[in-house]
């Protein structure tokens, strides 16, 4: 192999790959970032749906971007601007009785919600304090269990201490609820079906869980923990603006980004990483390769099962990453009129999750490989706050739809239209005349996510967020600290701790680990 021109190669220019490359470049390393797609950004991109209409194709809100990443990579200087922050969330009901939550308040008309108004701030405060235990670990390498390493031990103690510091009552409550299902917890606190539905949505979105599945409190806490202070926010120009700023930051430190260069293989030289081979056949040498692809793809495709232990391969195959979330994007000729909703709230995050049972029923379908007949949805119309996205008076609308399972019993390619109709009909029940305003629409199913965005199983988080895939067990035991059994090969994707969402923490942590471990990198 030729002499290494690079100290490290990062595979995949999604937000975590970009963050990782930017940090390495900033530390003076010569970095190549190889991206398969012609567009840089992974699942955080803005594309033109039809001429004049630009939409955040996959992820559509930047509520998790880690403040350290923004600060340390100076994203504001590299062009990141915000169109609107601290967006309120409104959960819709078919009869026009809405309920709006923002930070610590609930407003709106809904029956039986009086005591809920009072409890909501308390509930938020309490869960946020539990979430702070997770929050303090977002930008850290998770400790391994049972090692003799002093930093693992001290991190474990810190974790235990963080729980103990809550105080006796709160620690007990934390230990009780952390394994619960969100439905039971919400039923203990709130009477309003709408409020329960709204909060349950946040627990299950992106996960293969229903509100009555144990473990959904953990996903809720994870979401609270990763929420940045800005709250729900639209970057100006859509989510692509985030990765554009990251790419600018990486380039300004000297990283080289090659789009349209899919990687075929990680090359090994006497059991150590020697570089990569692109699908074009070109080989690029580097002593360190960091994969921003999901762990399954990273190991089974890039490294290859022939280079790994059988037991290890089995564990890789057992990583749970079956996506159940679809995305539907619309170009609209007019702002949809949701019954009973004023224009201001229409610009916020809208949820179709009118109750726990509604979501649970939607979930039932996905267990049997069907999409929900009445799905839960998260709707945003960023063009209300960002006039760069659509022509004047027109709008783009982006909808997360759940549940739409990866392993649909019928063929996704044949069911796509029916599914789209089902989504449109469902939205029309809340916004009359909606279907007349559609100028164009696209559907991204979990299968599309796998095919077009190269996420195995079409899972947004590169793997379920669950106890057995959390912190020291993410993506799987033994590789939770970003290094792998293959010397020189690292992971930096959302499949690693802390997990998914446009956060960048995994990329940042991985870069730190690479810099600490690799002498040459």
């Amino acid at each position, binding site marked *: 192999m030729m002499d290494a021109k690079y100290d490290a190669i990062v595979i995949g220019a999604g937000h975590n790959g970009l963050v990782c490359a930017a940090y390495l470049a900033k530390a003076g390393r010569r970095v190549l970032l190889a991206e398969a797609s012609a567009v840089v950004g992974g699942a955080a991109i803005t594309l033109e749906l039809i001429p004049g209409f630009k939409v955040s194709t996959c992820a559509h809100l930047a509520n998790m971007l880690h403040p350290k990443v923004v600060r340390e990579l100076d994203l504001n200087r590299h062009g990141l601007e915000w169109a609107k922050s601290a967006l309120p969330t409104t959960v819709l009901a078919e009869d026009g009785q809405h309920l709006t939550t923002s930070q610590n308040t609930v407003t709106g008309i809904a029956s039986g919600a009086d005591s809920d108004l009072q409890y909501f701030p308390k509930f938020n405060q309490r869960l946020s304090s539990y979430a702070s235990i997770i929050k303090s670990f977002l930008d850290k390498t998770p400790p391994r269990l*049972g090692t003799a390493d002093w930093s693992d031990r001290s991190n474990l103690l810190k974790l235990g201490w963080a729980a103990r510091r809550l105080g006796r009552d709160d*620690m*007990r*409550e934390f*230990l*009780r609820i952390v394994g619960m299902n969100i439905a*039971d917890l919400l039923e203990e606190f709130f009477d309003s079906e709408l409020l329960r539905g709204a909060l349950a949505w946040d627990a299950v979105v992106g996960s293969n869980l229903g509100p009555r*599945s*144990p473990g959904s409190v953990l996903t809720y806490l994870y979401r609270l923990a990763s929420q940045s202070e800005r709250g729900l926010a639209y970057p100006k120009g859509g989510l692509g603006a985030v990765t554009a700023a990251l790419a600018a930051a990486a380039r300004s430190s000297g990283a080289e980004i090659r789009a349209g260069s899919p990687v075929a293989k990680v090359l090994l030289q006497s059991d150590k990483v020697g570089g990569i081979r692109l699908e074009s056949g070109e080989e690029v040498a580097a002593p360190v390769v960091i994969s921003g692809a999901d762990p399954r793809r990273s190991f089974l495709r890039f490294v290859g099962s022939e280079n790994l232990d059988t037991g290890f391969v089995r564990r890789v195959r057992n990583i749970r990453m079956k996506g159940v979330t679809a995305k539907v994007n619309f170009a609209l000729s007019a702002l949809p009129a949701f019954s009973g909703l004023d224009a201001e709230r229409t610009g916020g995050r809208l949820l179709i999750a009118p109750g726990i049972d509604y979501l649970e029923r939607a979930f039932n379908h996905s267990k049997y490989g069907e999409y929900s007949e009445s799905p839960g949805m998260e709707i945003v119309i960023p063009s209300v706050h960002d006039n760069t996205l659509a022509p004047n008076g027109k709008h783009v609308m982006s909808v997360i739809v759940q549940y739409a399972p990866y392993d649909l019993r019928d063929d996704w390619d044949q069911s796509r239209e029916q599914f789209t109709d089902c989504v449109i009909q469902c939205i029309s029940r809340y916004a009359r005349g909606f279907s007349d305003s559609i100028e164009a629409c696209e559907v991204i199913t979990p299968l599309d996510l796998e095919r077009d965005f190269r996420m195995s199983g079409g899972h947004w988080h590169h793997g379920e967020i669950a*106890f057995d895939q959390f912190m020291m067990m993410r993506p799987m035991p033994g590789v939770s600290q970003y290094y792998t059994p293959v010397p020189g090969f690292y992971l930096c994707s959302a499949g690693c701790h802390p997990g998914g969402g446009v956060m960048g923490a995994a990329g940042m942590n991985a870069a730190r680990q690479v810099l600490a471990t690799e002498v040459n990198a």
Partner: protein
Amino acid sequence: MKQYDVIVIGAGHNGLTTACYLARAGLNVMVLERNPYIGGAAVSREIYPGFTYSNCSYVCSLLRPEIMRELELSRFGLQIIPYEGSVSMMRNGDYFANYADHDANRREIARHSRRDAEAYDRYALEVLRQCRFIKPMLLTTPPDPTSFKPRDLRGLWDLGKAFYDLGEKQMYDTIRFWTISCADFLDQYFETEVIKGHLAGSSIIGTALAPRSPGSAYVLLHHYMGEVDGNIGAWGYARGGMGSVTQAMAKSLQASGGEIRTEAEVSQIIVREGKAVGVALADGEEVHARTVVSNLDVKRTFLKVMDEADLPANFVKRVRNFKIRGSSGKLNIALDGLPDFPALPPDCPARQGDMHITDSIDTLERAYDDWKNGTWSRQPYVDMLIPTQLDPTMTPPGKHYMSVFVQYVPPYLADGEWDDANRKAFGDTVINAIAEHSPNFKDLILDVEVRTPWDLENEVGLTEGNIFQGELTMDQLLFNRPIPGYAQYRAPVDGLYMCGSSTHPGGGVMGAPGANAAREILRDRGVRSTAK
């Protein structure tokens, strides 16, 4: 009026276990039972003339061998007859059987999938490891993780050490096992739907979970961690029905000088100056004791037979939030002869064991969805056994008794009440499901007793008919069971204790909660325990 050292409310197997241990330690014990018979949900009853039904719990495995030994239950008449197989019958006429014999088992799995036969040993090893890990915890009082008391710190240390000693890889496997769903757990090993469906049955019995609910893998363990004569995971029949377990306990108790009174319903636990001093019976009589132990589930104990004013408000709120959803029903059937199951080979040992009707995990999931919607499963999961093949004492010669456990059945129906019509409709659903696999079954039926969660609540006293006195989910296990901060068998009132399955380690005819409670009581009273 006689003053006792201890009153135990409820003569279920845990109440009796506690009473036995206390009486053996020399205390003066009175057990009060509401029903005219003792045993709680471990009873043998003659509902149809000449036929003995194990009309609630029906098989035995979890009963801790330490308890059998220490209370000399064999000497007092308890005999466990092991059976050696289980089988799931499929819609297409095929079946999948599970045998105690390792080689036979392997051959049977290989008949469905050779790959699964290879995986079975890995699977069995992992389950066995988890059984070994949990076993020492069963007869241990859970430590309070928020406490700095030396005893709790030591308990936590022991727990941590047992965990740490597993080694890094197994620590992760253990966390995984305790938190994932049964379906995900089985998917790691098996590819055949019916094998997964068969094994997943143990993960749903008695719970408000389904195989795809995270946490259900643990429930699987809860049904595997028992043993018969040292064979881990084996199950058996109590000769004479499950009532033999509690009858033996009662005899053991009486031999140590303890007393039992039936038809003595406790209406109120009397608290004076923050201390439990006795109980008032429904007829107004008061019975006094320095210590009161409740075998009732926590909801019944604190919300029904106590005055809320005697309890901390926060505690009452937590008791209200205790999850105790009923999900199981039962049919007890008197048969004129042995029903045939033509799909099974004539010599199949599973005919004497658990027989299920399942095709896949999906069947179980769909059964669960019906329950969530407030109706009984249209295609229910059944665990049916005909113990009279191995135990002829329960029926007249040539006749048989069949116990059919049914999952899922809601305690309250979404539309309507549990009246005779609905009860019959539910019974017919189950009978028709069985008849699909047994052509002569319907003709043999002499009598059917249909039991819903509603019946369990009203007759046995289990709130919502939950057979475990509270769900076996992480928020209600170990130091969280039943209420965080109250996992050490002590109620928030001095002199009052809990010994039912609501407490650690939970339900099943195990006796461990009763033994643990007795140990704590003796500790508080400064009496040396005879229990380990």
